[in-house]
Structure formats: structure tokens, C-alpha cells
């Protein structure tokens, strides 16, 4: 099933043309890695799908962005922004748990979306923490502050927080770049498991990581989508010479 599709998307920050005519399709239950040098537009592209670019002043977007076939930027028949953000969860580069208890962090998305049923919230919190492989570490201290967790645990808490909303898509913006190697390995393992249920799009600067976790890889350069193919193809036999140069570490 086709989960996400962009057609001829142009994005401008004021006069700066940040995304140039991007058309791309992402299938459900796959992991797609977005790679490219800093400033190439990959994070901007990721933030199209939950409309986080809307928070920036002077941003202008043209073209169509479809999630589950529905135009998320369209007026009228489109998708409401809170509905979209429930469906498309996001994990940020730096772990950003709220200054609340572990339990309340995971329950937050449910509460702000109007869910009041206590039993249901408790069940969702437990399920989400199990899915993010954090449950065994925190089940006895759910009422403790999320700030008492380590960086890696905080990031898995943020993943649990996103999963509590039962999204279809999980956007990850360099989710392991602020973590140590062991925590990074745990996150990568988790991505592999979550693929069963979710469509995952991950921005990464780490070529090995893209190679390990993703099914497909898209290479961005100066706001353009240069090449988009299966990950083995991109890493072993890329069509474009710029892709070749980037994945072999000759620039970036």
C-alpha cells in the first residue's frame, strides 16, 4: 500500500528555494532513509509530512503531499492538522521529554486528543512502552520524572510517546545522533521491529545506519532529490555520480 506520496513539491523559505520539485512515493511498512549533506533539504522534506514546517514564518509550499491518499495541505476535503499529527508521529534529534512523569509523557498525546478513559490510557501507556522496549526499565518508576532517565532511555520514551497515539507513520529526524553507540544500537533494533506495524522515515547523517536499518534510501542534494532506490542499490551501485561520491564519503 502506498502510504505517502509527494507530487512536484516546491518549498520556499522566503526567497530560498529549499525543496525543488520533489516527487516520491513511500510504501507502508518500509523504512526509508533520507540522506544528504547538511542543508540539502532532507529534514525539511521530512517535516512536510506532519506539517512542522508550518511553524516557520514565511514558508511557502506548492504541489501535493498525500498521506494515505489524502491531501494534507488541501483545504476543505483535506486532513485536519491534529488528525494528521496523530497519524504521523515524530521523534526529534535531541530527546525532548516533557518535564513530567514518565507516565504523563506517554499519556500526553492521548490527553491532548481528548481521551479521558483512565483504563484505556493506562493500557496504551503500557503497550507503547513495551513497543519501545522501555517497559522493563521503567515499569516500577512510572511516576518518576522523565528527566531521571538516560539520554537513550529518554529517546525511547519519546518514541513511546509518539506510538501512544497509534500512528501509521513515524518520522525520525536523526534520532540517534545525540546518543552513545549502545543506545544507538537499541534504537536501530527498535526501528527494525517497528517496521512490522509502522511506516518509518528516518533522516540520518550516518551512512552505516542508513545501510543497516532502511529498505529504501533517498539522496538529497541542494534541495533536489537526486536518487531514490532500494538501499543496497544506492550503496553499491548508484546511478548518479553525486550519489556515488556522497555514499563513499568523498563529500558531505
Amino acid at each position, binding site marked *: 500500500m502506498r502510504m505517502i506520496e509527494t507530487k512536484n513539491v516546491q518549498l520556499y523559505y522566503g526567497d530560498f528555494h529549499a525543496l525543488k520539485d520533489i516527487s516520491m512515493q513511500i510504501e507502508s511498512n518500509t523504512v526509508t532513509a533520507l540522506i544528504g549533506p547538511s542543508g540539502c533539504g532532507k529534514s525539511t522534506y521530512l517535516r512536510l509530512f506532519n506539517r512542522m514546517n508550518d511553524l516557520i514564518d514565511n514558508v511557502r509550499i506548492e504541489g501535493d503531499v498525500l498521506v494515505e491518499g489524502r491531501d494534507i495541505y488541501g483545504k476543505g476535503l483535506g486532513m485536519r492538522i491534529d488528525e494528521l499529527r496523530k497519524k504521523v508521529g515524530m521523534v526529534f534529534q535531541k530527546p525532548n521529554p*516533557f518535564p513530567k512523569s514518565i507516565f504523563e509523557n506517554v499519556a500526553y498525546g492521548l490527553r491532548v*486528543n481528548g481521551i479521558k478513559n483512565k483504563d484505556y490510557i493506562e493500557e496504551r501507556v503500557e503497550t507503547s512502552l513495551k513497543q519501545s522496549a522501555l517497559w522493563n526499565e521503567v515499569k516500577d518508576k512510572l511516576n518518576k520524572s522523565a528527566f531521571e532517565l538516560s539520554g537513550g532511555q529518554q529517546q525511547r520514551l519519546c518514541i513511546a510517546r509518539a506510538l501512544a497515539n497509534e500512528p501509521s507513520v513515524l518520522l525520525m529526524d536523526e534520532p540517534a545522533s545525540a546518543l552513545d553507540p549502545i543506545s544507538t544500537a537499541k534504537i536501530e533494533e527498535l526501528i527494525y521491529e517497528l517496521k512490522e506495524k509502522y511506516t518509518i522515515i528516518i533522516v540520518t547523517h550516518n551512512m552505516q545506519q542508513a545501510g543497516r536499518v532502511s529498505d529504501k534510501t533517498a539522496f538529497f542534494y541542494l534541495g533536489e532529490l537526486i536518487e531514490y532506490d532500494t538501499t543496497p542499490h544506492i550503496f553499491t551501485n548508484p546511478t548518479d555520480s553525486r550519489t556515488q561520491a556522497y555514499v563513499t564519503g568523498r563529500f558531505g
Partner: protein
Amino acid sequence: MEKQTKQQIAFWIFRIFAWCVVALLLGILYFIFSRGWRTISWEFLTSIPEDGMTKGGIYPAIIGTLCLVGGSMIFAFPIGLLAGIYINEYAKDNWFKRFIKLMTNNLAGIPSIVFGLFGMALFVKKLNFGDSILAGSLTLGLLALPVVIRVTEEALLAVENSFRQGSLALGATKLQTIRKVVLPIATPNIITGLILAIGRVSGETAPILFTVAAYFLPQLPTSVFDQVMALPYHLYVISTSGTNITASRDMAYGTALVLVMIVLLLNLLANALRRYFSNRVKMN
């Protein structure tokens, strides 16, 4: 010269100036304490002035100051808080926002006697509140308003954007994000600022001069339309234009000491509340 020597010299210059600040504060406190502490007694705090304000206590002035501080905060805190939230969370970065910020800063720089005149013209005369707690509180509130706005703004600005993004990305609205994530994080700083504003307001004389302060009023107020005595004005009166300035010298230092103690206590309270809320904010 060796760069280590230069570093030592610079370090000592910084240290000496920091000590100067502390010494200055301690000097002022010592001056007030040494002259005022003999006057302080339970009776001084709880009785009315007597014998042309050369004896008795300052009870009405303490109560008056508390009324004015409370009244001004009832007015300035909600308006300042909401304005600060608007400026930092909602207003787009355009000329209008810059204009509001410029005006707020200008308002903070206006001499307090001008606030006093304005308060008299608007609240006492035009709105016909007369010399009253209401008029005085509103005038002091105007004075405190830019402080509260700026403190709120800065407290909100200090909240990392990643918290806002995290909340919005989960489907929360902007209002939910502000109420449930941003404000709790900013609360310790807002409270500190609020109490500093109270400290400022409680010591002001000029704004209450024409709007509320009574020269001598032995009874307590019964409504917001009554006049009251207030500590700073009382101090001014008995040190410059009392019935017998020499005889009321001790009373003046006692009053000054009470005023300084109130401000110091408020600052200590600000610190305690700040610590309490920054611990609590991690938890709730």
C-alpha cells in the same frame, strides 16, 4: 607581561568590583539596621502613630502598603501575563510586535512621578475614584505592568523550542501546548519576576503621592475607595515634613527597616518559590 599575570590581574579586578557590590548592599543594610532595630517592637508594628507621628507605631502604613501591593498585582499580573504570552507565543515577528516591545520598554523607563500624575489625572479625577486604594493600586499596577510583561516574555523565551515542537507534533493545539508544557516550565521564572515587581512596587512613593497616600490616617480602610497610609510615603513624611522631624527620627529609621525587611523577605520568598516550582515542574 606574562599572560598568566594578566589573567590574575583581570581576575582580581573582577573580584574587587563584585565585592564592592556586596559591600555596598551590606553597608546600606547596616546603616538601616543599626539605627532602626531599637525602634522595632511588636507595639511598633501593631499600633497607630501617636503624638504627631513621633511615637506609637506604623500599623496603618503596613496595612496600607499591603493593600496597594495586592491591588496593583491583581491588576498588573493577569494583564501582564497574557500580554507576555501573546508577544512571545502568538505575535508574528513583524513591525507590530517590535512596536509593542518598544512601547513596553519605554513604559518601563518612564519616571514614576509621571505615573503618579497620570494616575491622578485619569483615576482620581477623570474616573472620579478620588484619592483611594483603587486609584493608587491602578497607578502602581501601571508601573508594574511593563515589568510583568517583560519577565513573562523572557521566561517564555527561555523555554526551549523543542518542548513546543514535541507537543505540537503529538497533535496538541497551540493553546494546549502553552498551558500544559510551556507555562509549567516558565512558572519558576515568572514567579521570581512577579515578586521582584512586587518588591519594586512596595517601595514606590511618587505614584501614590497624588493618588492614595494619606499624611496621617489613624484608622484602617474599609473599602477600596478609602485613602490609606503607606510605608514609603510615611517615611518621606516623617523625615521631611512631619510635626517634629528630630523627634520622629527613630520612627523614620524603624519604618525604613520594616520596608527593607519586607522587600528582603519577598526576595527570599521568590527564591524559595522558584526552587519549589523548578522541582515540581519535573514531576507533575
